[in-house]
């Protein structure tokens, strides 16, 4: 069942997360991590444009959130590595710090927007010199080089604003995590090491990327791949560490997800 996308465009993962957390601010103690995580994942799915770079950034935050949530669900007496736990707390604090930073500048941006709005009501005079004075000027091209010419051209050709009305339908994508896992089990042993971006570069639907991401997490959980993210917000490296001739039948049950 296709539906129209009406959600606002989120400028980034922090933007979305802030929105999700702060909209429930009225009743602070109603805020639940699970609720936020799920709403976050749903919003990712609802996004109507697929820019892989941006998607990846959203997914990286999603991974942190899911990790926080998993942590919450683990029994206390489980065999938890203290270092891991501290790392997770650190990650959470870092996330909060970044959200606060993001919020600060969002609010500042709003004030700038208001200033710019007021300022744009006044138009400056730009008519410049009257012709008889122009002739006096010794050299009108003084200090102008070809790079200035190039930037002037780009400035002149830069699109003027226009209303963007995007009423696209998201086509229902029939993918399941199981299918994605099957594909990965086929692809990954051959590739050995691959980045998540490479792995999803052919996809046009955001949902497909999300499903692949969940499939990668599934394989990670079952110990068939190692994940590495060398740089914050960078790409995720996926390394196959399972047997080279694994069959899907060897995998533990996977929940299917119909989109």
């Amino acid at each position, binding site marked *: *069942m296709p539906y129209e996308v009406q959600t606002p465009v989120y*400028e980034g*993962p*922090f933007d979305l997360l802030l929105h999700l*957390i*702060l909209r*429930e601010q009225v009743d602070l103690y109603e*805020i*639940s*991590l699970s609720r*936020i995580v799920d*709403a976050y*994942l*749903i919003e990712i*799915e609802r996004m109507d444009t697929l820019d892989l770079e*941006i998607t990846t*950034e959203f997914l990286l*935050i999603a991974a942190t*959130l*899911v990790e926080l949530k*998993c*942590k*919450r*669900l683990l*029994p206390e007496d489980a065999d938890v590595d203290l270092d891991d736990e501290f790392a*997770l707390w650190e990650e*959470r604090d870092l*996330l*909060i710090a970044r959200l*606060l*930073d*993001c919020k*600060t*500048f969002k*609010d*500042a*941006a709003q*004030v*700038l*927007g208001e*200033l*710019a709005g007021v*300022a*744009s*009501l*006044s*138009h*400056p005079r730009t*008519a*410049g*010199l*009257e012709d008889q004075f122009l002739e006096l000027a010794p050299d009108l091209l003084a200090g102008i080089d070809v790079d200035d010419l190039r930037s002037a051209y780009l400035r002149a050709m830069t699109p*003027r604003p226009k209303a963007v009305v995007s009423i696209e339908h998201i086509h229902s994508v029939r993918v399941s995590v199981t299918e994605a896992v099957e594909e990965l089990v086929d692809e990954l042993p051959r590739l050995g090491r691959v980045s998540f971006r490479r792995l999803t570069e052919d996809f046009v639907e955001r949902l497909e990327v999300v499903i692949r991401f*969940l499939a990668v997490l*599934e394989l990670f*959980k079952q110990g068939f791949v190692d994940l590495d993210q060398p740089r914050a*917000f960078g790409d995720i490296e996926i390394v196959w560490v399972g047997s080279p001739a694994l069959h899907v039948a060897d995998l533990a049950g*996977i*929940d299917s*997800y119909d989109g």
Partner: protein
Amino acid sequence: MNPEIPRALEAILLVADSPVGTELLAEIVEVTEAEVEALLADLAESYATQQRGFQLVRVAGGWRYQTHPDLAPYVERFVLDGQAAKLSAAALETLAIVAYKQPISRAQIAAIRGVSVDGVVRTLEQRGYIGEVARDPGPGQAVLFGTTPSFLERMGLDSLAQLPSIADFVPGADVVEALEHGLRVEISEIPVGIDDNESVEVVTVEPAPSVAEPDERPSYDELLDDGPDTGFTG
């Protein structure tokens, strides 16, 4: 003082196509900067008193003529470009970061915004609102950006000092609390009996048993309303 001076100032500013600094004006009309300032203030006031359709204002470190804001509807009918291209939310956020944190590198802006900012930085640079002001002394020699006089003009500010203090925008304790609460890792909420908690993330997104109606897309709003944890505890 030569009675021509205020008239000369009017004439010069009429042909200027960007704000002219007091210093240059003083040099041309050969009076002190303080006198120029006083004369311009008088002129600005006389236009205001006479309810002229234009104003003389101080912006981006100089003086310029501009239309009175309340006439914008008429002017926009005439100026085909209409209003200056509206700044997107992304552009405004990036401008705010650059304005308050300058000099700042592209990577630092991206770290704050949480998204790649290459496109928006390029656009702002093209429009002349930000520019390279320095190079990072470190190994990468990253370009460091700062705001330009055009930025001040766009914001209608005389100088950066007129920007509200960044301290005004630091979120209050309520927001901090909300964030901490929202992201708390709360052991006490562990549902009993879930020791085999694999695919947590998958299950929570998973809409009820959709096997029966494979073609029907579930409504996620419903799921949200029901509370996301239902799937586990039920």
